[in-house]
């Protein structure tokens, strides 16, 4: 692919990105600074940070509302209850209580508003992140995508993003209010008496540092828990995916022992977190009681009799009691703060991992660089092409091939000869590390996305089906009918593939099904075309899935069709029938068939023979089969495989020779 520099350019944009970029993975943001991350968040989800001043104001009102109670108590004590003038205390207190109640109501309202505002904005931003994420995933250059694990991408869009929701709803907003509450309480304590406040604040700072340290220990132990849980996951996963083998080999005991080990490992890792975790919680209590005792003793003493070198305070009883209350108003949020810090990390990591999808450059070819494929069947030209997977050795080399528009070419060779790589080069799934790949005279990397889709199609050995009916899976390829599969009602239709196939469409489907000769097979299914195929089509056999994929592709009507072992799971009779039907359907299109069944080669206009990544022969079947060479050998093996009347030689003696 001449234009394979495209993803590299994207990678260069990521600055210090390393690691992830090297194996062609997603953009790497773990080394990106806070400011850059913030810029990315603002750029992708602007709704989140809009109107920040109002949010902060609401937080202050909400936090301030919690301080009102100690203040009211102080006022009531000093100006009513302990006022030696006596009488009228109830009225003074009554007024104070009214003011306090008004402030509390204001705080509640501010809190409600704040919560609602932050929740809604966060969820809107996360929805945007999810939707943009899935969009970008389908835009990532195929060669980059090939190196990504599907499960990891799903995790980034689900549990990673859910960590943000969890954080926001279980402490994130409270954190905001807690911080404002601490600021206000700290200022108040300092105005009552800075001499009393100073030790309290120093002790708080000390507490904060120690708790952070312990929290780091807790975090490490939780990381160990996560590690043991992932071992547990794969052990249980093995037990449920491999149940048929476990059953048929009678090795339940062995599996049970492995699961028991993993379960015990997880429990032990979890128990390991207990001591630091709870010591950390207890520290807050220790600090509160030390501060309280200090305020009671020192506050009273320094306000009454004291030695010369002690500070002289003039605190009222009300102020002293208010300080006692404020100490706990100050320290409790601090405890919460330390605990939420761990969750902040989860949320930030989650958000970052989702952002890494969006920061990965789009591989979609559009704009000035993009070129359209010429109309009609598409010719293919490879000039001295080499390709490799990652940093591995080249799997094809010095490949120079020209396929005329409308030609039907078969590619044959042993496993590992580079057949599938050839298919991937034509369909942009792997870039050429050397040489040029041209489709219709256009470098494959510059063919516009719109032009590439639907005009170039590949049917792989293990095609993917959506969890819907057979009709829907075939019809998904219908050209120019976007409404058919839109999730128009938006609700309830969880499969989302739509459940209506209009009359006209079912006619088209019926036609394609009949022309591929699939009627007899469909008739064995209880619901025919309306049979649901299950997740990934797993309710169908491998061969049945291939039949559906072939019908789907036939409906798309591509101008370059690449069949990569597309009928390997189908029984011979159906295979031949389908191939014949496909041949009729694909007349006038360029077809590249990759197969180890030589029958494919026999029907092709031309056969390309690959061996160890190089093109060794090219020509008609009838010509090649007569000259000694790789093709003649492969064909001979095939003929023996399919038709030899002799029983295969008994080769069991080989076992002994090969035993080391």
């Amino acid at each position: 692919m001449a234009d394979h520099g495209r993803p590299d350019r994207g990678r260069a944009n990521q600055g210090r990105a390393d690691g992830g970029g090297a194996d062609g993975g997603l953009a790497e943001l773990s080394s990106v600074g806070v400011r850059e991350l913030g810029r990315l968040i603002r750029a992708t989800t602007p709704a989140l940070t809009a109107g920040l001043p109002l949010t902060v104001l609401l937080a202050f009102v909400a936090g301030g509302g919690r301080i009102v109670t100690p203040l009211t108590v102080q006022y009531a004590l000093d100006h009513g209850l302990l006022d030696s003038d006596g009488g009228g205390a109830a009225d003074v207190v009554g007024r104070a209580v009214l003011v306090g109640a008004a402030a509390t109501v204001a705080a509640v309202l501010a809190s409600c508003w704040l919560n609602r505002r932050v929740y809604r904005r966060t969820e809107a931003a996360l929805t945007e992140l999810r939707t943009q994420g899935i969009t970008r995933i389908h835009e990532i250059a195929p060669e980059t995508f090939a190196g990504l694990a599907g499960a990891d991408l799903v995790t980034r869009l689900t549990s990673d993003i859910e960590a943000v929701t969890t954080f926001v709803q279980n402490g994130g907003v409270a954190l905001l209010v807690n911080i404002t509450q601490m600021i206000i309480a700290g200022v108040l304590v300092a105005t009552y008496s800075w001499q009393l406040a100073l030790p309290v604040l120093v002790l708080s700072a000390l507490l904060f540092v120690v708790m952070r340290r312990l929290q780091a220990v807790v975090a490490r132990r939780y990381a160990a828990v996560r590690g043991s849980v992932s071992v547990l996951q794969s052990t249980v996963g093995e037990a449920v995916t491999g149940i048929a083998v476990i059953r048929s080999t009678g090795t339940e005991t062995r599996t049970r022992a492995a699961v028991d080990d993993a379960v015990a490992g997880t429990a032990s890792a979890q128990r390991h977190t207990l001591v630091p975790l709870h010591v950390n919680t207890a520290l807050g209590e220790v600090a509160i009681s030390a501060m309280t005792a200090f305020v009671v003793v020192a506050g009273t003493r320094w306000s009454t009799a004291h030695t010369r070198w002690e500070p002289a305070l003039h605190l009222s009883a009300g102020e002293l009691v208010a300080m006692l209350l404020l100490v706990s108003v100050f320290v409790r949020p601090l405890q919460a703060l330390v605990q939420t810090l761990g969750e902040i990390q989860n949320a930030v990591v989650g958000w970052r991992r989702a952002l890494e999808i969006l920061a990965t450059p789009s591989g979609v070819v559009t704009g000035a660089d993009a070129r359209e494929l010429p109309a009609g069947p598409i010719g293919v030209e490879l000039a001295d092409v080499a390709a490799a997977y990652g940093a591995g050795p080249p799997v094809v080399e010095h490949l120079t091939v020209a396929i005329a528009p409308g030609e039907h070419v078969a590619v044959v060779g042993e496993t590992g000869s580079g057949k599938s790589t050839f298919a991937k080069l034509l369909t942009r799934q792997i870039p050429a590390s050397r040489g040029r790949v041209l489709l219709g005279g256009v470098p494959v990397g510059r063919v516009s996305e719109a032009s590439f889709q639907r005009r170039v199609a590949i049917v792989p050995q293990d095609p993917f089906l959506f969890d819907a009916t057979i009709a829907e899976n075939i019809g998904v390829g219908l050209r120019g009918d976007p409404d058919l599969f839109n999730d128009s009602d938006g609700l309830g239709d969880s499969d989302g593939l739509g459940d209506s196939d209009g009359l006209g469409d079912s006619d088209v489907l019926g036609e394609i099904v009949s022309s591929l000769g699939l009627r007899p097979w469909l008739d064995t299914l209880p619901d025919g075309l309306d049979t649901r195929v299950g997740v990934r089509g797993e309710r169908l056999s491998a061969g049945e899935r291939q039949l559906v994929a072939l019908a789907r592709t036939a409906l798309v009507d591509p101008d370059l069709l690449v069949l990569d072992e597309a009928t390997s799971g189908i029984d011979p009779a159906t295979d031949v029938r389908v191939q014949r039907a496909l041949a009729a359907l694909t007349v006038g299109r360029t077809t590249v068939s990759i197969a180890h069944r030589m029958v494919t080669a026999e029907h092709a206009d031309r056969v390309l023979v690959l061996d160890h990544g190089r093109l060794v022969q090219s020509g008609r079947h009838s010509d090649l089969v007569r000259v000694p060479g790789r093709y003649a050998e492969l064909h001979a093996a095939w003929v023996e495989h399919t038709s030899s009347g002799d029983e295969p030689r008994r080769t069991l003696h080989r076992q002994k020779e090969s035993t080391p």
Partner: protein
Amino acid sequence: MVKRRHDGRERVRGGDGTFWAGLRTMLDGSIAHPGAALVGAVAGVVNGVTMVLGAAAIGWATDHLIVPALAGGDVGRATWWLAAGAILGVSTLRWTTIIARGIATGHVQYGSQARVRRAVVRRYLELDLAWHRRHAPGRLLSTAVSDVDALWFPMVFWFFAFGMVVMLAVALVQMFGHDPALGLVGVALVGSVLGLNLLYQRLLAARARAVQDSRGEFAALALESIEGAQVVRTLGLADRERARVGAAADRLRRATTSMGDVSSVFDPVLEQLPSVAILAVLAVGARRVDSGELSVGVLVEVVYLLLTISIPLSVISRFLAMLPISAAGRSRIAAVLDSDETTAYGTRTLAGAGALGLRARGVGHIQGGRHLLADVELSVRPGEIVALVGATGSGKSTLIDLLARQVDPADGVVEIGGVRARDLARGEIPAHLAVVSQSPWMAGGSIRANLRLDGHPRERRPYTDAELWQALAAAGADTVVRDLPDGLDTRVGERGTRLSGGQRQRLCLARALLRAPRAILLDDATSALDPAVERDVLAAVAGLRGRTTVLIVGGRPSSVLIADRVAFLRAGRLVAVGTHAELLDAEPDYRRILQAYGTADTAHG
């Protein structure tokens, strides 16, 4: 929550309710760990009481130290020490019980999780294949991991909440003791907080479930979209996927927002209710203090008590809020533990040592409404090689499943070695019969471990390397293993993903051959092999003739040619059984399949 029944099986106790069933679950978990539970409960109660005592200490200090000292009165030296000592002493009791309660709780919680998790996975291992095929492995995995976690979530606050209930009781008694009016304020507070919490919990439960469902729906759609990326690309479905997955994301947003809206209102209200109570106490208390019925210290004590009362109330609410999540987990766990679709075993054994005959008598099978097989009569003689041939979807794999008793037939009887398969004792079939399925499955770990498993099923001994290599050679996998960097000790990755499909297929075949089975059933087990390799493997299979009964599925002539007889299936019915030559003559459909590639007729026509 898990009870051992008389048959030794663990069961879920609980039922449909959220609250009582949740409490029962916690109670059962505690009973299963009596020592830790006792420590947790005692520490919880003591801790709760220290909150009341702490407030009393502050009140005492106010009355006996702060007020008289600041009023210029004389305060004895002992009072100073007593005030500081009371505050610090109560605190020491409090923080030690915090640690003790936390650790004890963790032991009960993690111990209970481990126990239920083991029970669930054990059940998985006992439930039959038909059950497993109806349940997605991902769902089962998440039940064993996440649902079990969820079941025990409330345990985190169980002893804490228990202590707090005690604390509330003590506090209310205390307040009533000081003044009935203050007591009433306390009761009103506790009542309204708990009442609001119940309402909150009810409103939240449905919404939390909706969020959970939407998350699952979104995850499934996202996974499908990502797994189908190649189709999305080639067919240009990106816009459709954006709309489809985006709509699911939007439904998730609506569900989450709806939950957030509820907590937006309830959280601040619940949080500020104690403040309102404090204000009420001040208003009521001021008159009492005025009239001399109440000391300022007691008023301060009650205020302090109410300030800390938000902790127990929020702990109790959080405990209650976790119950619905726990209940959801419990119902999924119960569905597993209560499933009775286990394979029943008889007591008979397979005597002798030679090859085993296999027989289907009037066998039929239906799965999910689809008639897969009907009226199959087939008898495979000991030591015979029989090929199963049929078009895609004709029921070959189903017949293999039934003959190996992977699944029991809906109709008819399967016999192995002349004994009804249902009458055979547990472990008999795996010890004598091997199946190699279409999709080659391997466990993580080394090749050696994958081949060995539990060792020789009948002789109860581990395999020697010589035996391993011999089986590998027969399956055409010796060169594969020799070329790997660590040979037999090469780790194959999770589910064998580091190997190609063809390599896995050969290793799975080797795993079966190694066990020297008396009957082997091969379900298209050579489909991913190159013709030359397949030829050698089939030759090795042919060499089993006489010693091992072989049933082989495969439409390719190569596998038919090593067979003594061929059974031909069409649309779930056994159409004909005979030699290859007989069937070529008699069955046009059979001829069509075998001669599809236009080469097989000359040899046998």
